[in-house]
């Protein structure tokens, strides 16, 4: 494949602390830096095509290291409010709440997209592990089938996300049934949202769109954009954490055409799994940390 692919990975070592949320756990920087470096190694090892890896350092705490294909750019989260407002592209993004974590995650991707030189862009988390190099095949399939994007996951629509956008969503899911579980969600298999665990599209996808946070999490608007424009897209299954679909395990392995493609290790940016301050006594959290590090070590 001769096309350049830009892989955008946000990084934050203490995202909750930086925006001073009350009771928000503090993450342990060294773990997240180490894990992110392992993920970069994995990309360089498995994805053997023409690529650039862009780390968007939201908390300005990622080390100034040199690795193959790597560029580190500074995100906006650690900037002063005035510096953010004075960014030339600030008006484009409709930032309405500086205390919204999903907004900072989304904005990290948007900053990365500004710096990206690729024909195609992959937005991903810093805890996504590639098992196989299927990107070239995906891009070919996208071109043949006119797909706007391929994404993991297929997120459920939260009740509050529905309420905040009900005029838009009503067009696509007129018959609404709610479940109170999992924080309240819309019971429908008709629509699930894209996310940025893994999100592959042409760079031109962002000509009339930026990675949004208005539906309650990162990049759900990509799905709405395609539905509104009548464009095709593909979500990778199985659809973990979406109670409208039954999944047999909790490994977060995603398949592409029956081949094991990626594992979302669930322990990186925005997961708060490395909290030591408040969650020190939480055995479940410590178990998650252990599981994540064990899997990472095993895979990398």
């Amino acid at each position, binding site marked *: 494949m001769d096309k350049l692919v830009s892989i955008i990975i946000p990084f934050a070592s203490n995202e909750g602390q930086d925006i001073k*949320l*009350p*009771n*928000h756990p503090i993450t342990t920087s060294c773990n997240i830096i180490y894990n992110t470096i392992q993920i970069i190694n994995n990309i360089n090892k498995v994805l053997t095509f023409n690529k650039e890896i862009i780390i968007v350092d939201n908390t300005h705490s990622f080390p100034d290291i040199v690795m193959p294909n790597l560029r580190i750019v500074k995100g906006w989260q650690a900037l002063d409010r005035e510096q953010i407002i004075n960014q030339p592209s600030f008006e484009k993004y409709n930032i309405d*709440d500086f*205390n*919204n*974590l999903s907004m900072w995650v989304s904005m990290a991707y948007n900053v990365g997209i500004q710096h990206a030189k690729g024909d195609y862009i992959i937005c991903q988390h810093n805890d996504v592990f590639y098992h196989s190099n299927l990107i070239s095949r995906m891009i070919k399939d996208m071109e043949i089938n006119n797909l706007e994007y391929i994404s993991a996951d297929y997120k459920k629509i939260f*009740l*509050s996300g529905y*309420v*905040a956008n*009900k005029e838009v969503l009503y067009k696509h899911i007129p018959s*609404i*049934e*709610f479940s*109170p*579980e*999992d*924080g*309240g969600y819309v019971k429908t298999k008709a629509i699930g949202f894209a996310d940025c665990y893994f999100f592959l599209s042409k760079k031109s996808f962002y000509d009339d769109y930026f990675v949004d946070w208005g539906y309650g999490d990162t990049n759900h608007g990509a799905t709405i954009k395609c539905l509104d424009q009548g464009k095709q897209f593909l979500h990778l299954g199985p659809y973990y954490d979406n109670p409208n679909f039954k999944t047999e395990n909790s490994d977060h392995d995603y398949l592409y055409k029956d081949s094991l493609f990626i594992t979302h290790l669930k322990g990186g940016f925005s997961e708060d799994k490395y909290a030591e301050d408040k*969650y020190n006594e*939480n*055995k*479940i*959290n410590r178990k998650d940390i252990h599981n994540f590090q064990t899997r990472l070590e095993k895979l990398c």
Partner: protein
Amino acid sequence: MFKKLLFTDKCILNTDTNTVIFDFEEDWKEYTKWSQDNIESEYQIQQDKQAELSWNQGAVHKRGSEDRIFHKSGHIFDYKKYSIGGSLIIHNKYFYNGNVMSTYRKRGYLEIKETYIDNGSKGSSINSKVFTNNGTERKSIKYYPNSNIVQTLIKRLSIEFQIFHDYYDNGVLRAQGMLNMQNKMTGNWSFYSRDKIIESTHTFEKGKLIEKSYLYNQLGEFTKSVYHG
């Protein structure tokens, strides 16, 4: 190698020669020496004997008001206990490895059913607990896997309504509100973040949003209200 016989300890089967040796025979000394030299194997053949006795070809072991059925492994498979009047008051089921799979017990008018997840050598962990009274569900609790942390709790309040609580895996309340008996959301509902901050409030009638929803940011500050009519 030896095998203990099921209903007597006064003889043993030599599986190499396929002969039975009685304790008054000269060859019995060979067995006792083997037994002393192979403590673990002796323990194992004793366990095998007990398992086979317990299994009893799958037949029920009846003792007083209790019935027990065993797997071939020797682990209990099914346990029932009856009251003096003959009604079932305890019924437990077990996985093949002996870990508990489900329990049922009757306490007064209340019946309590629990289901468990098999965690192998770590035993079982509780999955759900349901309280019923004369066939009517009074309270149900769902647990997070491999922990004793409550995920959802539903409790019947009247013939029309039940209260619903949903919790994060750190034990923090995630949502609370009322359900009608068809499990449709009704009345006022509140949702909270992992760090106990209000996220949204809504009003429902038979599962439909009515009146106004109120949305809050991650600091718990009001951001938006949406009218549903």
